[in-house]
């Protein structure tokens, strides 16, 4: 909740309090009606049966399906996090380079990978690695795994490169001038003064980018990568409880991402004193914020 929202209306008087109570009751009733309609439909199609829900949450389901799937999801997302941060730092630096052509080339690369849908890249890399596997360089069954990591790295690395650039741009001019005044070259100033501060300023946005990486790793389902969603679907097809197993898989994602978002908000509050940049909370996107977290 933003600080300003509470000031959009006055402290309620007796009439407003009655209206608010009425509105509370109406919205509660509306939610109940929707819930009842859903439950009726679920009951009519037998989705409420205890067997289906139990089979989606019991020990076997976790041991044989969710946990192995979650392991691949976290593994691919974790590697993609590291590699996209490296990619982002390199291209962020290149986009700030003093040499014009280097800057332009980096800009073209970053803008290209930001504009192409992640799924299109994944499909391409999936086929590419299938070709590579034919030469024997990698195992054929590992192709989708590498494809997921490659596509996530290129897209999110480009987003992070933009974060680095806008983080450096958001620093007060005095930082760069002070570095020049003590005799640093522009590369030294970038490396020792500006980028370290920009990194602290962008840490919250970086954490919320990890949410995007984790969510997008589920796209691997579409190219046959054995991640959480794939296992959830397998469990569902085997037991006839696809609805239940997908709901559980969604809840696992929601809990992990919720924790990441919560950490990002906490971090942005703590870090705002450590940098001259703007470490405002990523949960309320600023105007002109470079992240498109819907990606």
């Amino acid at each position, binding site marked *: 909740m933003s600080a300003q929202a509470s000031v*959009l209306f006055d402290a309620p008087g007796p009439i407003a309090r009655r209206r608010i109570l009425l509105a509370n009751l109406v*919205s509660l009733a509306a939610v109940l009606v929707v819930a009842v309609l859903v439950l009726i439909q679920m009951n009519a199609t037998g989705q409420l049966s205890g067997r289906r829900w139990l089979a989606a949450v019991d020990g076997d389901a976790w041991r044989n399906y969710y946990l192995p799937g979650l392991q691949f999801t976290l593994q691919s997302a974790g590697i993609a996090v590291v590699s996209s941060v490296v990619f982002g730092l390199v291209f962020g630096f290149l986009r700030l380079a003093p040499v014009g052509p280097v800057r332009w080339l980096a800009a073209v690369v970053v803008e290209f990978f930001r504009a192409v849908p992640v799924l299109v890249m994944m499909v391409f890399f999936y086929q590419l690695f299938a070709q590579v596997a034919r030469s024997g360089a990698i195992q054929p069954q590992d192709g989708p795994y590498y494809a997921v990591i490659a596509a996530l790295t290129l897209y999110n690395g480009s987003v992070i490169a933009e974060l680095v650039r806008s983080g450096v741009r958001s620093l007060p001019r005095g930082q760069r001038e002070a570095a020049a005044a003590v005799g640093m070259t522009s590369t030294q100033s970038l490396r020792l003064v500006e980028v370290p501060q920009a990194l602290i300023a962008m840490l919250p946005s970086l954490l919320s980018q990890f949410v995007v990486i984790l969510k997008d790793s589920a796209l691997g*389902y579409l190219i046959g990568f054995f991640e959480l969603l794939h296992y959830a679907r397998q469990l569902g097809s085997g037991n006839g409880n696809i*609805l239940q197993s997908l*709901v559980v898989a969604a809840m696992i994602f929601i809990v992990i*991402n919720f924790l990441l978002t919560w950490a990002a908000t906490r971090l942005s509050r703590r870090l705002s004193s450590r940098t001259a940049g703007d470490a405002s909370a990523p949960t309320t996107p600023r*105007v002109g914020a470079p992240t498109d977290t819907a990606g």
Partner: protein
Amino acid sequence: MQSISSLLADYGADIPLAFWTNIRLAFLATLGSFVLGVVLALFRISPVPSLRALGAGYVNVVRNTPLTIIMLLGVLAVWGQLKISFSSDFTLNFFIYAVIALSLYHAAFMCEAIRSGVNTVPLGQAEAARSIGLGFLPAARHVILPQALRGAITPLGNTVIALTKNTTVAAAASVAEASGLMKRMIEFSPDVMVAIFLTFAIGFCLIVIPIGLLTTWASEKWAVAR
């Protein structure tokens, strides 16, 4: 070159059609998610606690769920298990499901974009609206939202761009769109896969980059002078 020209002969007409599906998905889902996003944003800034909780709950749950799962829940669970069908025509039915899934997912981001726009409206505007006797809804309609939407053009545009790219996820709902066609084309002619990939990648650049330029132009044209 031989295989590229034969590829063009085979798929020349299919590529624009596939992209047209993505554009239609993007257009309809933008409308749907914007309307739902405005309603959610109103919920989140309203004086009614239950509506605020409802809005916040929706945004936090949906924003943290992968779009792929929402798409699959729609097609495999709601259609496959709950037997809710929007049309007897399979293609149209899945298309509608894809539009709904895209709208539900991006509404959360539209809501947050609009809320960030509300934050750009100076406090005095809300106070002035109240002091001339406007209640919450009239104040929102005549004073807050017009300025908030103008201040939110950039994040709204970013959401539309993300939505446009995410229309490829409709492949999970068996909608015949660009990424599915690309997959099929590469499977049949892997020797020119880079050319095929570049064709589709540039196709998306041609759709996405104008939206970005339009967003920048609109956010400057309609910026609220303060």
